[in-house]
């Protein structure tokens, strides 16, 4: 079963900049893959197409069997509930507690408070932050904030988990910890795609790699040290 399919996808931004062209790839259900490339290669754009934060200029994107080009604006929220996203700047809200941040997707999806509470605690437990639910995210360290972001991304049990430079601001040790967290979600059936330029870490983990280079996608090995990603 395919979870994600890109079919000759191109994206041109107003002003003529070609962000992506001729993108073809598939992600199987439960697969774990990295998306790498120099900054400006189109990693974020590619992720945004799967969330319909952007729409492709050409080609078709399928997520969970759904042709995103056929989705009306009113259906976009329901797509996003199936896709969890983690950002480098984690997009947490500092006017509410860790618990309320993680509970937001459940509240939106219409869970009862009791049910939401159970799931939030389970999600916080899975990222090792169970004791911090009453804290404000601003009191937490960068790594902890990122884990709150991950808990929020997985609390609704999404089929697909996307991460855009989730370890961008973290030291190597914390980065490895975060990556291991993503691996555990893959182990329970979630399809995971992580955009990152942390080549050393990616090489160590040894999973499938999608490489973006000036808007074109290559599958497989990264060029050696000193290459374009050096």
């Amino acid at each position, binding site marked *: 079963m395919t979870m994600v399919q890109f079919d000759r996808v191109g994206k041109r931004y107003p002003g003529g900049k070609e962000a992506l062209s001729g993108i073809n790839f598939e992600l199987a*259900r*439960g697969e774990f893959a990295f998306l790498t490339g120099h900054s400006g290669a189109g990693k974020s754009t590619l992720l945004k197409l799967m*969330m319909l*934060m952007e729409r492709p200029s050409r080609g078709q994107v399928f997520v*969970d069997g759904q042709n995103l080009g056929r989705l009306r604006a*009113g259906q976009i*929220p*329901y*797509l*996003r*509930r*199936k896709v969890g*996203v983690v950002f480098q700047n984690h*997009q*947490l*809200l500092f*006017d509410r507690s860790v618990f309320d941040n993680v509970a*937001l*997707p459940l*509240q*939106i*999806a*219409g*869970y*009862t*408070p009791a049910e939401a509470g159970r799931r939030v605690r*389970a*999600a916080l*437990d*899975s*990222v*090792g932050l*169970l004791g911090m639910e009453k804290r404000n995210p601003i009191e937490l360290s960068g790594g902890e904030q990122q884990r709150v972001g991950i808990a*929020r991304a*997985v609390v*609704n*049990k*999404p*089929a*697909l988990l996307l991460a855009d430079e989730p370890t961008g601001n973290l030291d190597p040790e914390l980065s490895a*910890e975060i990556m291991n*967290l993503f691996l*555990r*979600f893959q182990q*329970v*059936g*979630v*399809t995971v795609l992580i955009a990152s330029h942390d080549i050393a870490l990616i090489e160590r983990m040894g999973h499938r790699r999608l490489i973006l280079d000036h808007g074109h996608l290559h599958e497989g090995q990264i060029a050696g040290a000193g290459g374009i990603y050096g």
Partner: protein
Amino acid sequence: MAEPKNSVKTQAGASLQEIGMRKRLNAWAANHQLVAVETLMRLLSKPLGSLLTWMVIAIALTLPGALWMALDNMEQLSGRFQASGRITLYLTPKATEQQGQQLSDRIAALDSVANTEFIDADTALDDFRDNSGLQAALDFLPENPLPAVILVEPPLGIEQAALLRLIEQLKSYQLVDSVQLDMAWVERLQAMLALAERLIGVLGVLLALAILLVVGNTIRLAIAARVDEIRVVKLVGGTNAYVRRPFLYTGLWYGMVGGLLAWLLLILCWALLNGPVADLAELYGSGFELKPLSAGAAMVLLLAAMLLGWLGAWWSVSRHLDHIEP
């Protein structure tokens, strides 16, 4: 780190389907309740900033409300005058007191007349002397210039046509010099009240527009202050309705509290004016009392305020919210 196995082990994608329709409906209602309480608390947590908006709304509502109240009272007053619209018959100078009295009795016996009163010329002069303050001047007159008068009171609620027929009949009596219907000024008053009503309508529409703009602008600022939150909510699957909801409730609260304040202001106006108006009415020998805004009218005021607040919020939200995309 804690054991993750018991947390995310369900099959991917099996989330929404697990929730039954009834549960979702309950959750939807619970969300409305939560948002309603949260938005009110948010407003109350910054009472000074909110008070400013509330007062603007309240004053914008009090103005037409007060005029409405005044108009209501004027109509009540004019209604009373209309009920007592009398016909005055001035008799020719040659009519004797006895003839006048007989005519008065004859007229009183008519079907379309409730009551009559005959005032002979001498009594009329005495009344005039007592009430006009022209006593000295009147004493210089060689003879009584005033005619005898018959006051004719038609029955309450007489129809216009019947009244006109009665007047024609009264004019036909030989002893009657002229007939005056004390209705002309009542009609003028009513024309003026109709004009005032129209003016209040126009003023009301303008002030309603002002409320829409004030609430709309306040909501615009609230949206600007919560852009980050809106982005995140949309990102994790919040529908437009979900994003709109807190702002619509905020508008509703602005309208409702503004309406309640307007009501209080109107009661205050009434309390301040009631005493002087009663004193004035007593000087005219009238039992007229200033009526406060009726419960029904107050309800209309409150509902209109809530509707305006909601509409103002809707207008602002529909203009600004769609542009905020993650």
